[in-house]
């Protein structure tokens, strides 16, 4: 806890680039980790989609990569499930928690509140490296005997708890999964601690809570949610590990016969795991989306050239969504065998969450009214975010009702729902953030033409992938199936092939983004300090910011972040402009 100790710029490669205490370096490290993770997860999804569409077709090279998982190149059902488990786990934990929250939050939260660094730089560094180790542990399960777990990202017990008799991958692979997630929790707890203390204690003069940018509010709320959520997942994973390696039975009931052997465990409760997991799991999905809320609320005004409608209401929405997210976890368990009456008790708050979500959506749409909307890649992704969030959110309205969920649970309707809100809306939030903040993070502009192509093709592509999944679900197509051999699923195969084609095409489009990212990092046009004419503090410093963020300048804040569309020579007021005055 060396918060008060002023640390000068370090020297040496290790100290500046590897074990750096600088929040900006740590933010970029998180960003790179998220990129590696998202590419891994995306490639896994291609393999999955290919297999779903053409289950009997061999994939050249797959037999070499995984001789036992795909003898002769055709994927076995267990390999499919392992890829699916890794896809979900990598995407939820190592992409959607790291990119919008840990990466952008680390880089920009201290700058946006006018601090020189995080409150606890050492914890911050530890947070990244612990997360990195967690990623390595997870990925290493590809290389152990029988490969990674096949129990899905939710790792329901007893499948995940009774050991290798349960199926291939339930030996070492599942243990590594549980260890990786436990380590991940520690990393994110350190991160949340830092975000909270920094927001509360290191704000510069004049930066009252009400003057914090929306993105800061979102990261702050997210870190409070994360603090509680990861603090619950951590002990749950520890208990799971003990069940697996120490012979305890927290989650394994008595009298099970697995692979013709009576399991020695007795008395545990599989539903206990589900409760602990979803008590974390539901808040986790808001950990994924709230930074997106913040990013859109932060970016949209700068491109609409007018203040966000209802700034305080928006903050209220963030906080109430965060609060409510702890009351709804049972909506994942309507048909799990828990008390049917509690289904209604969980359904009502789930439906109530749609109220702040709707208010937030209407505030964004209302902000567009009467604006002078500039179309650039960041604003396009914000508009896309709103569109897909509405679509995906509305499909949540079906699932939130137990009477309907008895039909739709565990179908592709759910898969369509969560990909639209999470894999697309939250991802669009990240994309908007990347295109918006890249100039500040790397000192160079991204290529705008490539960016627009990336937006249009991705926007069309993701609707083609994930909208049809709702139709599949309505027709009763169940999820987590390696092959659709059931009679009633046969007529749906053409739709599956359409989805696969769309997924492969959309995936290929991401190479545009990747290319743009790499090219611009080294060859992009040097960025001015404030390319978007935005108001918050990150735009008051150089691109990229100096080591102490403001070059020794004491920043004094006299304005809120929302002062766009004002009369005067410029139509906006920087937060650190003198009171009443303009310019910066």
């Amino acid at each position, binding site marked *: 806890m060396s918060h008060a100790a002023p640390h000068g710029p370090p020297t040496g490669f290790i100290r500046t680039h590897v074990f750096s205490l600088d929040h900006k370096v740590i933010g970029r490290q998180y960003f790179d980790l998220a990129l590696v993770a998202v590419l891994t997860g995306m490639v896994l999804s291609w393999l999955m989609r290919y297999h779903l569409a053409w289950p009997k077709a061999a994939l050249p090279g797959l037999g070499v990569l995984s001789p036992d998982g795909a003898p002769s190149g055709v994927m076995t059902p267990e390999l499919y499930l392992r890829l699916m488990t890794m896809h979900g786990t990598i995407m939820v934990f190592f992409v959607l928690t790291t990119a919008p929250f840990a990466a952008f939050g680390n880089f920009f939260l201290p700058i946006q509140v006018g601090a020189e660094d995080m409150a606890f730089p050492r914890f911050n560094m530890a947070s990244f490296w612990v997360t990195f180790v967690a990623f390595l542990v997870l990925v290493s399960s590809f290389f152990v005997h029988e490969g990674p777990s096949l129990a899905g990202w939710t790792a329901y017990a007893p499948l995940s708890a009774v050991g290798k008799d349960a199926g291939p991958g339930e030996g070492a692979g599942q243990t590594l999964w549980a260890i990786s997630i436990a380590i991940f929790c520690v990393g994110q707890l350190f991160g949340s601690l830092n975000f909270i203390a920094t927001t509360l204690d290191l704000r510069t003069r004049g930066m009252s809570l009400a003057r914090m940018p929306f993105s800061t509010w979102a990261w702050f709320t997210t870190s409070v949610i994360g603090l509680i959520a990861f603090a619950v997942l951590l002990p749950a994973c520890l208990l799971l590990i003990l069940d697996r390696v120490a012979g305890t039975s927290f989650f394994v009931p008595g009298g099970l016969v697995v692979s013709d052997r009576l399991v020695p465990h007795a008395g545990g409760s599989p539903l206990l795991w589900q409760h602990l997991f979803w008590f974390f799991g539901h808040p986790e999905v808001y950990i994924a989306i709230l930074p997106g809320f913040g990013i859109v609320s932060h970016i949209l005004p700068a491109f609409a050239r007018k203040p966000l409608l209802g700034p305080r209401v928006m903050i209220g929405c963030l906080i109430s969504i965060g609060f409510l997210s702890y009351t709804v976890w049972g909506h994942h368990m309507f048909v799990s065998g828990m008390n049917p009456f509690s289904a209604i008790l969980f359904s009502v708050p789930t439906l109530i969450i749609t109220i702040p979500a709707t208010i937030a959506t209407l505030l964004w749409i209302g902000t567009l009214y009467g604006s002078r909307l500039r179309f650039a890649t960041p604003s396009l992704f914000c508009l896309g975010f709103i569109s897909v969030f509405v679509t995906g959110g509305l499909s949540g309205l079906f699932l939130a009702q137990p009477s309907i969920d008895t*039909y739709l649970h565990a179908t592709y309707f759910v898969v369509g729902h969560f990909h639209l809100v999470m894999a697309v809306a939250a991802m669009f939030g990240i994309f908007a953030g990347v295109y918006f903040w890249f100039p500040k993070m790397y000192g160079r502009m991204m290529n705008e033409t490539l960016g627009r192509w990336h937006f249009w093709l991705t926007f069309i592509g993701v609707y083609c992938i994930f909208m049809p999944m709702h139709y599949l679900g309505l027709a009763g197509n169940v999820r987590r199936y390696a092959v659709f051999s059931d009679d009633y699923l046969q007529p749906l195969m053409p739709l599956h092939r359409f989805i696969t084609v769309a997924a492969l095409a959309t995936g290929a489009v991401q190479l545009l983004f990747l290319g743009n990212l790499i090219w611009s990092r080294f060859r992009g046009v040097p960025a001015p300090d404030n390319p978007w004419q935005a108001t918050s503090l990150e735009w008051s410093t150089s691109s990229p910011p100096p080591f102490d963020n403001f070059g020794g300048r004491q920043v004094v804040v006299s304005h809120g972040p929302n002062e766009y569309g004002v009369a005067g020579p410029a139509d906006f007021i920087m937060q650190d402009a003198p009171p009443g005055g303009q310019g910066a």
Partner: protein
Amino acid sequence: MGRLFAVVVTLFTVVSTALFVMHVWWLPPGISVVGSGVDRQINETMIMAGALFVISQLALACFAWRYADLGDARPVKTFPGGATPMVVASILLVGAEIVALTLVGSKVWAQNFMVDADPHALHIDVQAEQFAYYFRYAGADSAFGSMHPALINDANSNFFGLDPANDTTARDDIVAASLVVPVNRPIQLTLHSKDMGHSFYVPQLRLQQDFVPGMVIPLHFTANRTGKYEIVCTQLCGLGHYSMRAYLEVVTDERYGQWLKEQAP
């Protein structure tokens, strides 16, 4: 750019709404009374959500078209009334929707899961295992033999762990691999799992319920149309999850009686 966005969003909205409205892909026809309640609930939600979907996407499209920056110095306008109408509309509209959906939906849910089965219901025991279902009928004595996990043995088809040597009630229990039920007769299932979490899902019944190892879970339904339907497992239970399936055969009373006789040990 704004116009392009508006066109693309409108196109999506129209196409996807049309595919819903035309029922191009839709639920298979239902075969139970409670199931038609579920269908009604889905339809109502579809209409409400569809309306919100269309309105908000079109509003987004309109504003993107109308308010694109053309480089003119026109001043920006705020939304008439500011944020208040949004908040009030959301709370009232969505609030009313929540109340309406919950009141009606909870009844449907209660019929499926919160009321007891008809007292004269036909009792059938279900055992789920990696990766099959087995169904047990009580036989002539209308009593089920008790289950002993230690005796479960797939090799000699003792899927339920029965002990006919010592347990007289177990001797006439009928175990089948298909769920054969008489039409229009209330059925009471009792779900057991031998190993993992599994699930009982018959899309045509609009019914889904997990098996939880260590728990005994009741489930009831009444099928009102004869036919052969698939029971599929929807809870990830291992590598053969995708192939875990059985058939629900809804037959006439006569056919049922005949089938039962054929099965008797």
